């Protein structure tokens, strides 16, 4: 007997350029909330599950535990060892993804409709009864250690490790979620069981599903898959400040091109000025070739192949970040130009014409994101994680349109603070001195 408690939202996006994305909210008998877009033209289903917590739940001295645990989820469950589990998955032609992020863990499944029940039964085994066999722990631990060794020689990763350490200190954001050689080497099977218990928590689940599946089927599937997860988990981390001062940190590394990571305090996702900040960032260093930084640093001066900036609103802290790579001889000039553009946007903002152009792009581009089952499932779950309602997909372009040039110019002055910009440069930059304001 299946009873689906469905509060059915039917959202047809209205403008002609927009995809007809119909989001249904499904609440299962067991109380799990999920969003669904039915797409019956291809007999496949994409499922995207996020659980709040993530690697920030690593216990003291156990850095890397959540990351290793998530990598082990696909390495044996129930009466199947790693090879038997993978053989079963391959026989079903299903793809599973298990990833650990700062604030969430992610579980994805892409499968053929006709194998749905077997795939869900198999995935349930992985989530509820993972084995964490010692040989699997040792094998995957060696892979994680290999990745840590590789990061230690990768200029971009060296830069982000240094930046995160300075910005977030003792907060989990301040260290790599992969852990260190020492911490990962010391992890035990007991630590895996603890990390599993802490990270996979029923009350913190978000679900997006897209494909050849009905709300009734999804509801039953989710209760099977997730119904036996523990209801409560450990306390989530505290918020933290960004303890970063303006300046330049140079990390000597013998390589021809210097890599720079830069940024300062950002803006919260639910701040009422977030849309203005989003549009400011887009103009300053957002995607594509149209940003001021791409124009000034790449197109006009040929100093780099690419420069980007990002708003990064994490759950417990916010930063605005950017990155650029340029030859050791020219990175100083690239940084000077970047500072100047940061300052110009902060003090002058942008013209009405520029704002109009951004609005045309952002409102036109938004519906094109709803492309392919897995991509749409990812959008659905991402919206829930940050607390947006389903009708956001309908209203989102109105929020963009409502931002005025006055908003932009006020927020630019608050958001962008050239004197607080800190650059971490990895390489052998010429004419660039270590400096802290």
């Amino acid at each position, binding site marked *: 007997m299946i009873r689906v408690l469905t509060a059915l939202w039917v959202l047809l996006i209205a403008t*002609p350029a927009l995809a007809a994305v119909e989001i249904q909210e499904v609440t299962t008998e067991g109380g799990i909330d999920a969003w669904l877009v039915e797409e019956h033209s291809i007999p496949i289903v994409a499922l995207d599950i996020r659980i709040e917590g993530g690697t920030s739940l690593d216990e003291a001295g156990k850095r890397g535990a959540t990351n290793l645990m998530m990598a082990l989820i696909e390495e044996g469950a129930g009466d199947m060892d790693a090879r038997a589990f993978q053989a079963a998955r391959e026989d079903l032609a299903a793809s599973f993804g298990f990833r650990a992020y700062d604030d969430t863990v992610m579980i994805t499944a892409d499968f053929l409709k006709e194998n749905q029940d077997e795939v869900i039964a198999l995935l349930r085994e992985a989530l509820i009864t993972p084995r964490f066999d010692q040989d699997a722990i040792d094998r995957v631990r060696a892979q994680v250690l290999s990745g840590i060794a590789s990061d230690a020689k990768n200029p971009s990763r060296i830069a982000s490790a240094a930046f995160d350490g300075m910005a977030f200190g003792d907060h989990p954001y301040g260290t790599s979620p992969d852990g260190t050689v020492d911490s990962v080497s010391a992890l035990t099977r007991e630590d895996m069981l603890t990390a599993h218990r802490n990270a996979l928590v029923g009350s913190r689940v978000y679900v997006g599903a897209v494909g050849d599946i009905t709300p009734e089927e999804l509801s039953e599937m989710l209760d099977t898959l997730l119904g036996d997860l523990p209801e409560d988990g450990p306390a989530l981390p505290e918020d933290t400040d960004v303890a970063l001062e303006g300046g330049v940190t140079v990390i000597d590394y013998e390589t021809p*091109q210097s890599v720079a990571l830069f940024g300062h305090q950002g803006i919260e996702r639910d701040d009422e000025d977030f849309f203005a900040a989003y549009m400011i960032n887009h103009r300053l260093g957002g995607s594509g070739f149209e940003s001021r930084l791409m124009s000034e640093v790449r197109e*006009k001066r040929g100093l780099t192949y690419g420069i980007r900036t990002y708003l990064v609103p994490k759950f417990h802290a916010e930063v605005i970040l950017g990155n650029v790579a340029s030859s050791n001889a020219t990175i100083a000039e690239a940084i000077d130009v970047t500072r100047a553009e940061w300052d110009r946007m902060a003090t002058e903002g942008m013209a009405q014409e520029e704002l109009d152009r951004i609005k045309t792009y952002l409102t036109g581009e938004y519906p094109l994101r709803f492309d392919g089952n897995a991509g749409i499932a990812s959008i659905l779950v991402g919206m829930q994680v940050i607390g947006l309602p389903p009708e956001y997909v309908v209203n989102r372009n109105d929020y963009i349109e409502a931002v005025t040039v006055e908003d932009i110019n006020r927020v630019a002055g608050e958001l962008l603070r050239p004197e607080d910009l800190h650059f971490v440069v990895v390489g052998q930059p010429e004419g660039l001195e270590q400096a802290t304001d």
Partner: protein
Amino acid sequence: MLRLAALLTTLWTSAVLAAEDVTTYTLDNGMDVVVIEDHRAPAVVHMMWYRIGSADEPVGASGVAHFLEHLLFKATDTMESGEFSRVVAENGGSDNAFTSYDYTGYFQRVASDRLELMMQMEADRMQNLRLTEDDIATERNVVLEERNQRTENSPGALAQEQFRVAQYQNHRYGVPIIGWKHEMEQLSLDDAQSFYDLYYSPNNAILIVAGDVEPQEVLALAEQHYGPIPFEPDLPERIRPQEPPQRAERRITYTDARVSEPYVTRSYLAPERDSGAQEKAAALVYLANLLGGSPFSSALGVALQFDTQTAVYTNAGYGATNLDTSTFGITVVPTEGVSLSEAEAAMDQVIADFLENLIDPVLLERIRNQLTASEIFALDDVQGRARRYGVGLTSGLTVEDIQSWPDILQAVTEEDIKAAAREVLNKDQAVTGWVVANEEQAK
């Protein structure tokens, strides 16, 4: 193990594959047109592929194909530098371009009602590009920084470059797509302009439009915007120096302090998909899967990562779709404490055992079924479907070859795989590369 046998009975059908809806056409000036319908979302991908890549470059001008790709975003008679991408963005679209050994391609993804504008602009830059010395000087620095980012800053990429030089001693596949640095620094306006004038012609181009469109409307728009561009009478036949038979093993050790862990790779010359003759390539797709596909079930994975703790990573890969002779590659990253000699010996033993032993029919059927399933999943990726045609058509295949490929894959037998393995897995037709941080690791 009983469980696996039971699951194998739940096979799915491939009836859904007939859904692919593709229309092809050739304009009077020789331009090929492929339209792929997918009406799930009101969006379209507009792609222009040229049958010209880095392996077609004149000697001494390596990197010019890719350099020109960058320059196509500069001014034309009627559009200013950068205006192309700006107009795409103003219409809510995204655009980019790519260069490979065998092709150069440009694409925009937009709402389907903006298709005509894309065609108008793409047709414009096929014939009206106006390059300046300023463009050359600045953009040359950009591609040099791109080389820094992709290659000079990456010991793995530098090693790979050396291995390809050793692999291809006569064919231009041995020269990097982005170019050699010393030649890139000398690329001139004239290099780019002459390449453009000859090869950016409708009879050397393939238009692919995929998404929410009607084929007849696309064809009418293509006639209108691309039809008037004149046929290039001097377009040469695409004949490139071919690789001679390799008769002796080649070995290289690349040393770079930035290497985090040593590894060994072996790359064999291997046949590619040829028009009307794709069977051997299909067998090699299975061989790559059986040798080093899944780490949990492939020969290398089981022997080196499960039965012994020899490697932290194993892989086998094969590039089926190439205009000329391709490669079949194997990589092993040894576990700490295992030397490269030991890792390579273990890898060779796996290959020898594979050639000696029967192929597990369960594994073979599993791969066959996964290939069937991948065709169904592929229907969800309209841009991927467009790319499949673009890569195939610029690599000497026909639409019929591309459409028959899934069936040819399904028809591969154990005997085909063993025969292909015996032909390809010969050290005298391979480059074995060691990548190390210091001399100690190369012992």
